[in-house]
């Protein structure tokens, strides 16, 4: 594999063999040529219909078939859709709620706030029953309507929540009928639950503003409290992905030489316009809607919990959804390719949409500054709110990074945490954390992750996103 520096932190994997396009890698420091994730970037460059580049964001790490932090846009009519290019947790994503409450007000009642959130939002293995078990009809509505289903049921920060979600909190191409009975069974009692692993709900303090105008537009003011939620489509999305991988792995070679020649069987895929491709896309989009409804239900539960713990009304809390982004999804979008608009299917696996100013797909209220891009860090340091740019539209199909990326394996992290109380260490730094399992805190401690500041720094220097604000955690709940 030949790597050459294009400029700054951007590197190219030169096209070789049957690669259809080169790879482009944004990297924190020079990329290691033996990194297996780079081989995956090159493998993705074989995907039928791929356009311009197989892209990797600076938080890239090895994934199943596609690297996590990978972006691949294919021609929407003639290209391939790959479940591995979306990932198991379909529409895993992040949202941030702004509030009108001073962070110091929250800090004064931080234990109550964190305890109330932990009581009201189920976390951990098999978390369920945040709300009554869904009926079959309700589940079908969730799969079709996404966040809007939850808003109709009263789970909302304010009345414009749906407009402040990517795609309005709903993918219109969802086909609930394509979601199997098994996937439905896994999801039916999980709406409004956080899950485990790197999923979290945080109460943050707006610690620093880098762009006053953009921050004001986003409703971010220094010293205010904010809430950040990271979760996805729970077991339902996993089942959809698992079934699609099984099915497409068995039929991949039916679609011709380009599919037979794919270098990694994990790149199971099908033509977008095939029966299999359409079935996966319909089910995947329905699962994406489930994820939006999930985060929306948790939004309603979190706002109520915050108000209750603070002894305030929801009106006094003044919560408002800043934005909701998905970072595991494939979506039909129109982008300029070689100077002309083209319908493409953009796979973003561990990558965040980052549309620039003036784009009609960005909510009107943010259109002058660009789409909010929400990048969580780790539970001991900070997260970032960024804004998308026109350079992202030119260079990355309007895509940016999605998080810090792991530095240590879970085993290495647990080893490093042995004999320590991560909760106490965080508490000494003013961060209250509650988790279902003790081990989670070791696996998820700050040292297990790269510094997200380095990751967003690469994106900012490349002009893909602009720094708007930094959030620092005060209270965290995890699985």
């Amino acid at each position, binding site marked *: 594999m030949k790597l050459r520096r294009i400029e700054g932190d951007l590197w190219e994997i030169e096209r070789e063999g049957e690669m259809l396009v080169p790879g482009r890698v944004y990297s924190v420091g020079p990329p290691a040529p033996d990194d297996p994730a780079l081989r995956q970037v090159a493998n993705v460059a074989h995907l039928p219909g791929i356009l311009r580049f197989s892209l990797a964001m600076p938080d890239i790490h090895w994934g199943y078939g596609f690297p996590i932090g990978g972006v691949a846009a294919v021609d929407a009519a003639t290209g391939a859709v790959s479940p591995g290019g979306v990932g*198991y947790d379909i529409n895993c994503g992040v949202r941030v709620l702004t509030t009108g409450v001073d962070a110091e007000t929250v800090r004064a009642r931080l234990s109550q706030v964190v305890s109330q959130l932990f009581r009201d939002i189920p976390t951990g*293995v098999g978390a369920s029953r945040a709300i009554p078990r869904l009926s079959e009809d309700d589940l079908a509505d969730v799969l079709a309507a996404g966040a809007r289903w939850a808003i109709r049921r009263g789970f909302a920060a304010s009345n414009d929540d749906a407009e402040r979600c990517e795609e309005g909190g709903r993918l219109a191409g969802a086909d609930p009928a394509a979601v199997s009975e098994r996937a439905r069974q896994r999801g039916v009692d999980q709406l409004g639950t956080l899950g485990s692993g790197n999923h979290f709900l945080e109460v943050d303090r707006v610690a620093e503003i880098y762009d006053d105008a953009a921050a004001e537009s986003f409703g971010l003011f220094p010293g205010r409290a904010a809430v950040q939620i990271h979760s996805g489509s729970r077991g339902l999305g*996993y089942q959809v992905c698992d079934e699609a991988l099984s099915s497409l792995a068995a039929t991949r070679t039916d679609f011709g030489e380009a599919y037979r020649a794919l270098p990694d069987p994990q790149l199971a895929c099908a033509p977008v316009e095939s029966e299999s491709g359409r079935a996966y896309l319909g089910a995947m989009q329905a699962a994406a809607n489930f994820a939006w409804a999930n985060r929306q239900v948790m939004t309603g539960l979190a706002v109520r919990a915050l108000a209750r713990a603070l002894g305030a009304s929801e009106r006094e809390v003044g919560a408002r959804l800043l934005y909701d982004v998905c970072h595991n999804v494939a979506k039909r979008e129109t982008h300029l390719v070689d100077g002309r608009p083209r319908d493409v299917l953009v796979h973003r696996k561990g990558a965040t949409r980052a549309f620039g100013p003036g784009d009609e797909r960005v909510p009107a209220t943010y259109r002058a500054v660009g789409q909010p891009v929400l990048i969580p860090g780790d539970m001991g340091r900070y997260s970032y709110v960024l804004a998308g740019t026109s350079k992202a539209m030119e260079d990355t199909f309007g895509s940016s990074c999605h998080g810090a990326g792991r530095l240590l394996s879970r085993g290495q992290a647990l080893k490093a945490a042995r004999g320590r109380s991560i909760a106490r260490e965080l508490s000494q730094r003013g961060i209250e954390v509650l988790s279902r399992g003790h081990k989670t805190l070791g696996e998820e401690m700050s040292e297990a992750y790269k510094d997200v500041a380095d990751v967003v720094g690469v994106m900012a220097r490349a002009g893909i996103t602009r720094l708007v604000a930094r959030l620092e955690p005060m209270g965290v709940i995890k699985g």
Partner: protein
Amino acid sequence: MTAVRLTLPQPYRDLDHTADVGVEVTGASAEETLARLVLAQSTLLTGGELVAPGPDARVAVASQGGLAALSVELLRELLFRFATGRVLPGACEVVRLDASAAEVVVALGPYDPVRHAEGLDLKAVTRHGARFDRVDGGWRAQVIFDI
């Protein structure tokens, strides 16, 4: 084949993996190895705690992809039962295993959210890196889970 019923705990080895988790098990026979793989999955889910005895259930899977694919299919089926019924094997007996089918009898006990609080939330059994091979003196298998 002499069917052997194995109960928790059983030995397994953690495979180091940056974002997910993997297990490797060995056994004197393919049946023993498969049973240990089933119980390794239970151990991850329970955080190493035992599972209260539960009723036996017969679980059969088929695959044309060999023993590695069969073991993935079996673990997927058991993970589905865990996700939807909150039950998991505390004991496992392999009653049939050939190149294209496996059948086990598992004692499915209840998941206890307090006792098993340190368990991992396994979301999927991946095909990536799945192996099931004859080695000197026995068998070795490995599976990576998405969490």
